[in-house]
């Protein structure tokens, strides 16, 4: 039986039979806990609240109002059906010109119109997931590597490596300096790669950062641009959270702005990955964008976009929506405001319980510091605490190890994928857990021992390998 299975496996590729997709990690117990017991305000008030999913659900009311007032944006209404035929046959991988124009316009607005984008450099992809893989295919051969500052979005392990054969080489950032990306850390990582005989093709930044929720200042960006120019390696900037900068915070600085002011920068090295999944809250529509300043990369990526074009129906809708300047301006402002309020309410609530977070001013999440709650300052300690959070506090949050964080005890908590009421319930659960925790600290040994015993019977033992954070596609449909 075993040898027959092995024989069948050999008939498949190594990619299909292996674990390079990264989803076999014990991490997904958390997601399973959520899926088998999802919170619902009336039907399952004691269920697990999902706080591991970086989604922006705060501004759908604005979009729905717009849709009602703009029926021609849907090719399926009486007003829009005249477009149907032309849209249904449109499969040109250049994309609808009005779509590219609208996206270029939107990207500029998100950056306060401090930079302009050329619609002819806009290349479509199957979400940012598709964009990252395509960029990796364009820039690197199997075995070559990208430097990536930690902690980083766990999906990169699959998106950049799985089918491309490209490697990721971490630039270790530490809590001691708030996980800032220093020139020293980048240089050290580059040198280490040289010693290990790994050819570095580029540096990948997510700015604003997932999971930190912070964004880079001008000086850091300039320093990184000078670094990549010196080493003649690419710079890929994932700016997927660009419009999630909270109201009242300093302006986001895009890599585009930096290279505008730096005449010495080799623009052929600069590439941006973008998407509407976070800023607009449209992950289901699969609108990914590659914007490269390198003509050959634009050309190659465009050919590769055949493997993940944006549905023309969606292009048409997005083109209409994002061409409406008044709506876009209002959306960007209101979204920034609501994100700021939600972030403030949540982090203030936590601070009242003695829980601090990394100071952040963007993103759909915050980076929570629970090091003081760990029994031991190890990844095992982090996993134990995480299981408690899932099973007892009934919150699905993401452990730092799944983002390759160098310091155990940090957790990413998403706050924009729920309403105010759910947020308050999450806070009250944390509050009651914290008060139980404080009591439990008194007769320390007995209770802790009992708690850890119960955990080990319900979960597999973990090994030392870092775990993967689930990507949103793992969320199963409920319809």
């Amino acid at each position, binding site marked *: 039986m075993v040898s027959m299975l092995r024989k069948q496996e050999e008939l498949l590729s190594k990619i299909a039979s292996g674990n390079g997709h990264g989803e076999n990690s014990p991490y997904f117990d958390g997601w399973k806990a959520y899926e088998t017991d999802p919170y619902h305000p009336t039907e399952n008030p004691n269920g697990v609240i999902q706080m591991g999913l970086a989604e922006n659900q705060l501004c759908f009311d604005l979009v729905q109002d717009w*849709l009602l007032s703009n029926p021609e944006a849907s090719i*399926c209404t009486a007003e829009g059906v005249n477009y*149907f035929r032309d849209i249904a046959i449109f499969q040109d991988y250049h994309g609808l010109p009005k779509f590219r124009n609208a996206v270029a316009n939107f990207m500029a607005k998100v950056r306060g119109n401090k930079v302009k984008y050329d619609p002819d450099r806009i290349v479509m992809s199957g979400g940012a997931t598709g964009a990252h893989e395509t960029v990796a295919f364009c820039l690197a051969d199997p075995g070559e590597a990208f430097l990536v500052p930690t902690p980083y979005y766990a999906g990169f392990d699959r998106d950049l490596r799985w089918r491309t054969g490209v490697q990721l080489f971490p630039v270790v950032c530490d809590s001691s300096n708030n996980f800032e990306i220093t020139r020293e850390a980048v240089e050290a990582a580059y040198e280490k790669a040289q010693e290990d005989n790994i050819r570095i093709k580029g540096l990948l930044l997510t700015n604003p950062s997932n999971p930190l929720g912070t964004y880079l200042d001008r000086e850091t960006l300039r320093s990184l641009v000078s670094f990549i120019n010196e080493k003649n390696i690419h710079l890929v900037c994932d700016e997927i959270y660009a419009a999630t900068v909270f109201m009242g915070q300093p302006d986001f600085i895009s890599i585009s702005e930096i290279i505008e002011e730096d005449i010495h920068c080799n623009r052929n090295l600069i590439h941006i990955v973008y998407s509407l999944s976070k800023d607009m809250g449209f992950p*289901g529509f699969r609108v990914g964008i590659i914007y490269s300043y390198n003509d050959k990369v634009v050309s190659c990526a465009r050919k590769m976009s055949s493997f993940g074009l*944006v549905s023309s129906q969606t292009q048409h809708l997005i083109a209409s929506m994002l061409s409406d300047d008044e709506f876009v301006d209002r959306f960007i402002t209101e979204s920034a405001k609501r994100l700021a309020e939600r972030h403030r309410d949540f982090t203030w609530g936590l601070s009242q319980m003695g829980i601090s977070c990394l100071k952040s001013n963007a993103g759909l999440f915050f980076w929570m510091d629970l090091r003081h709650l760990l029994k031991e300052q190890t990844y095992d300690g982090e996993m134990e605490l995480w299981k408690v959070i899932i099973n007892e506090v009934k919150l699905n949050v993401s452990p730092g190890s799944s983002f390759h964080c160098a310091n155990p005890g940090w957790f990413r908590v998403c706050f924009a994928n729920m309403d105010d009421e759910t947020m308050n319930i999450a806070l009250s659960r944390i509050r009651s857990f914290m008060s139980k925790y404080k009591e439990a600290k008194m007769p320390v040994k007995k209770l802790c021992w009992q708690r850890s015993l119960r955990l080990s019977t319900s979960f597999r033992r973990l090994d030392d390998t870092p775990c993967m954070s689930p990507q949103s*596609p793992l969320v199963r*449909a409920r319809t």
Partner: protein
Amino acid sequence: MLSKKASSLCHGEDSSYFHGWQKYDSDRYDKLTNPKGIIQMGLAENQLSFDLLESWLASNPDALVMKRPNGESAFTDLALFQDYHGSADFKNKLVNFMARIRENKVNFKPDNLVLTAGSTSANEILMFCLADPGEAFLLPTPYYAGFDRDLKWRTGAEIVPIHCSSSDGFKITMCALEEAYQRAKKLNLKVKGVLVTNPSNPLGTTLTRDELNHLITFSIAKNVHIVSDEIYSGTVFDSPSFVSITEAVMDRNLEHTDLWSRIHIVYSLSKDLGLPGFRVGMIYSNNKTVVSAATKMSSFGLVSSQTQFLLANMLSDMKFTDKYMKENKERLKKRKETLVSGLKLAGINYLESNAGLFCWVDMSHLLVSNTFDAEKELWEQIIEEAKLNISPGSSFHCTEPGWFRICFANMCAETIQVALKRLKDFSQSINSKKKAGSCSRQRRFLLGKWVSMLLPYDPEPDR
């Protein structure tokens, strides 16, 4: 600086298949604004039945503004829906639709279906799942030019052609399969499977029972996969009726053998429903590992939730889809007959076909020599003089020069008449030039002979 893939030509777009499109793009026919422009006959699109789709849309407004039957907006759920398993509702409708195309002789399970961004993505994903870099798939020639990119470019897989010949009507023979396999072996390429398009692009024919049986026998003997791209399965407008690979395997009672897990189908709504812009492709496999891996890989090109919702609604109206498929086939048949009448008037032979959106025609009699160079020359003349973009057989890796694929379903009735007249005029003009050329060659020969009789004989000419 860039990867080898970025710098290579493996994307295949330098092929004549795509050059014709570029020429067309710079001089497009329009009845009013550019009546002398190039008519596009190189694009296998189905534009004959949009009116049916449009009238359905007009009668079903709710579905389309993303409203649920209870009147509530589905927008938020759709905007957030990125589960790579796809909409269960949509997949249920798709498997039902696929089964009805096969006259319910086979049925499909939604859990074995993986949604992808078009069949372009489906074919690439299957290669990633079934072949390691350097391993090969056998493909019968002529085959769709896009396979060179879709199957090989980023996957590193190889294609070894199965040479099919006009003397057999380009059918797949056991002999050709075996010969291709041995050729792959000589090239040190491990063969992982055979990929067929059924109905065939560019032939427009459905695979016969014999051909399907050859494939099955071959797959068992060599322990290889069969990938059947059935993207044109809904365009079978004439007999013999379509026989899916699944049906053929079941007819031999092989569904409980390990062959079953080596059968994979690729499908899409781009041809049967004429919706290539919506990027709805799929893989159907009985192999759980393939389904699982392919599902994860579909992350790189999911189907837009907005589109899944629209089409789930459309496909649930079975009365409509049955009517559409029937009417669509009738129109395709009629249009093909129009093309065929035109070909006859132009003195051009064609392969008898019963499916697809194109005809496979034989213009070898118009070649100046039986070579691919001559085919290219003829093709350039067809574009420049006849102002028709048709696709030369060499771009489909046909082994015999002179064959061309002519698409007929991507234009209105008036345009095809214009195209056929141009073809007839062109054909006559080439024929006359050929005759004149051969008369003048005959005259020169006679003259030369006569002249040499007058000149002194020189037995040692200069080298």
